[in-house]
């Protein structure tokens, strides 16, 4: 009875929120439903045959979207927090949206991205059948704390779910591999088969020390940041054995190769055949703000969400690989969702990525901080304009016919820029 009441109220809250253009309406709807019926998440999610949870610093939204796309292409009814609402309220709101007034789910499987720090609060409610661990990078230390602490939290969280829950884990990330190894459950590892021949991770890399003995890890090759074919010379730990199917990455960038492999393995575990996964991936298109292309005033703007050093570096690499003289807007905000500490920009590899062939426009709440960062990194042409709308206009004026404008925003800046370009945040 209370579940149906909760659904009725939550659905109204969602409509009102959308009607007033306050956003996607998921979070408010979720909050309403949980207030009326605190067990809403478990009641609704237990009706799903598969509950897939995706965690990690970078790639959650893209991987979740890929899995959802593959599963729905093969005929399943999928519930999926597509708008990136990955806290408890957002997940509840999403379940409510796909539920009927009778309290039954109008879906077969659920695919949820879950915030790193939120995992411990929702994992027992969702009781996932598959948990996908993508990576752990330094991100928002003011909010999430240190990586080791997150890894410990995940370990504890995993001990609270069914022993039947399967893990899909990135073998190339030493910290993720460690969590898989100590989990005492069935783990399918994914990883790349080659990368750049490098033996030691960069100084700015995060998890380049052995979690068991503290020695510096050595690598046969590195794909990016601290991800690669690693081993420990002191205690003998090494990258777990991986199962790598031959798969084509539908998106640009090494980081998306990992997302694709993760989605592939997960869907295989959910019973989808390899050819069906392959076929479904071919029709996958980028999600909002993640390599998403928009047409504006006859020009193409590509948005590459860049909210931490590893993500920023990979976005910049992707841009440079596509354009020899790109115009790039870097939009740096420091609101709660972005992390209030912007010092991460100094951990980017912008020195080695950027040269005088780029034109950079720095914008956002902390445009001047980004300006300082670029000044100390490179001889690029730099314009500093804190106002997002003006910065986008400057960028659009600077590109030539047929050239693309690239925008690398933090999360809140991405939403604001989409609002400027399309009239809607998501």
């Amino acid at each position: 009875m209370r579940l149906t009441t909760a659904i009725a109220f939550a659905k109204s809250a969602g409509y009102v929120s959308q009607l007033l253009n306050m956003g996607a309406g998921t979070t408010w709807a979720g909050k309403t439903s949980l207030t009326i019926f605190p067990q809403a998440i478990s009641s609704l999610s237990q009706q799903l045959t598969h509950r897939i949870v995706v965690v990690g610093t970078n790639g959650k939204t893209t991987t979740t979207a890929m899995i959802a796309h593959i599963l729905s292409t093969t005929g399943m009814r999928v519930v999926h927090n597509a708008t990136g609402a990955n806290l408890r309220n957002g997940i509840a709101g999403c379940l409510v949206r796909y539920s009927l007034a009778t309290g039954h789910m109008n879906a077969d499987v659920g695919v949820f991205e879950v915030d790193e720090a939120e995992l411990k609060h929702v994992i027992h409610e969702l009781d996932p059948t598959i948990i996908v661990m993508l990576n752990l990078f330094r991100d928002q230390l003011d909010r999430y704390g240190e990586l080791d602490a997150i890894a410990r939290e995940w370990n504890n969280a995993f001990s609270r779910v069914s022993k039947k829950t399967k893990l899909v884990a990135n073998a190339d990330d030493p910290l993720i591999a460690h969590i898989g190894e100590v989990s005492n459950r069935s783990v399918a590892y994914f990883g790349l088969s080659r990368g750049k021949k490098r033996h030691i991770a960069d100084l700015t890399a995060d998890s380049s020390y052995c979690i068991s003995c503290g020695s510096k890890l050595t690598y046969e090759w590195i794909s990016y940041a601290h991800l690669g074919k690693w081993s420990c010379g002191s205690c003998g730990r090494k990258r777990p054995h991986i199962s790598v199917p031959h798969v084509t990455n539908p998106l640009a960038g090494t980081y998306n190769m990992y997302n694709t492999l993760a989605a592939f393995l997960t869907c295989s575990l959910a019973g989808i055949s390899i050819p069906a996964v392959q076929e479904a991936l071919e029709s996958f298109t980028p999600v909002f703000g993640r390599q998403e292309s928009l047409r504006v005033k006859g020009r193409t703007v590509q948005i590459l969400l860049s909210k931490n050093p590893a993500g920023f570096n990979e976005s910049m690499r992707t841009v440079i690989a596509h354009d020899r003289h790109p115009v790039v807007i870097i939009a740096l905000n420091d609101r709660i969702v972005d992390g209030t500490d912007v010092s991460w920009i100094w951990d980017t590899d912008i020195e080695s990525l950027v040269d005088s062939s780029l034109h950079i426009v720095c914008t956002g709440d902390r445009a001047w901080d980004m300006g300082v960062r670029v000044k100390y990194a490179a001889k690029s042409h730099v314009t500093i304009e804190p106002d997002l709308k003006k910065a986008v206009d400057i960028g659009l004026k600077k590109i030539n016919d047929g050239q693309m404008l690239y925008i690398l925003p933090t999360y809140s800046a991405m939403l604001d820029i989409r609002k400027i370009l399309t009239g809607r945040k998501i």
Partner: protein
Amino acid sequence: MNIYGDRGNVIVLQKRAEWRGIPVTVTYHSIGSSVSDITNADILLMGGAQDRQQHLVAKDIEGKKAEALKKAIHQGVPGLFVCGGYQFLGNYYKPADGPIIPGLGIFDVYTEHPGKTQKRLIGNIAVESPEGNTYVGFENHGGRTYLEKTAQPFARVLSGSGNNGTDRTEGVLFNHTIGTYLHGPILSKNPELADWLIAKSLEVKYGLRETLSPLDNDIEYTARDTMLKRLGIWTDIGRKWEKASRDGSPCRRDERGHQPMFCDDAGQIDKEVFRNREAFFMGKGSEL
């Protein structure tokens, strides 16, 4: 150790020296590195790290390396020790749980973690140095640091928490070495500090006392002013102030026309504010 972008301090120092034609060699000292890295250094920097790494570093530095570090700092080699590095140079660190970790005892300070239930001190911070310079940064620390008898604070908190959130002191200054909780990284928006470290290193190494050639700091200062405005410390009036007079008065204005907080609009020392301020730095803090 590097976390929270503290390697940016190295980048800023290197560039500001090189832009003036001073060649720089950067040596990243890590676990197992030779003690000569420390004895050969003209500027020493150390950042913070995750707890696990900090324990490894503490073990590695015991003995010869610790002695070399003490000797260098006592001899006047300039240094910047941020957050975990700052705590490590104090007398001890008492974690939320577990035994006390002894420090190097170079700074006469100690740090205690008030327990896991207490909030970390996180956020943007602005401070004022004894010379009247205003610096900004970002702090993020669980431990509270307290100054003992011989310790001089690096600065006074204008907005934020500082050493412990109660006595308004921030950091410590010993000889030419700064211990501080300011990330940001601190040198990126406070170029005066970077230049001070460079100038001191030239003085200690070559006996040079000349002032460094000026650089264009417009972007750095605007980044700082933006934060000072947000924290409510400066208003737009600052923009209209005249260019600095270089008469040696404590009320001289800097390149941007800003003058120390203890001066009034007419460029005169506000005696009461100034006395309180002197008392602050002498008495090491006041209750908020």
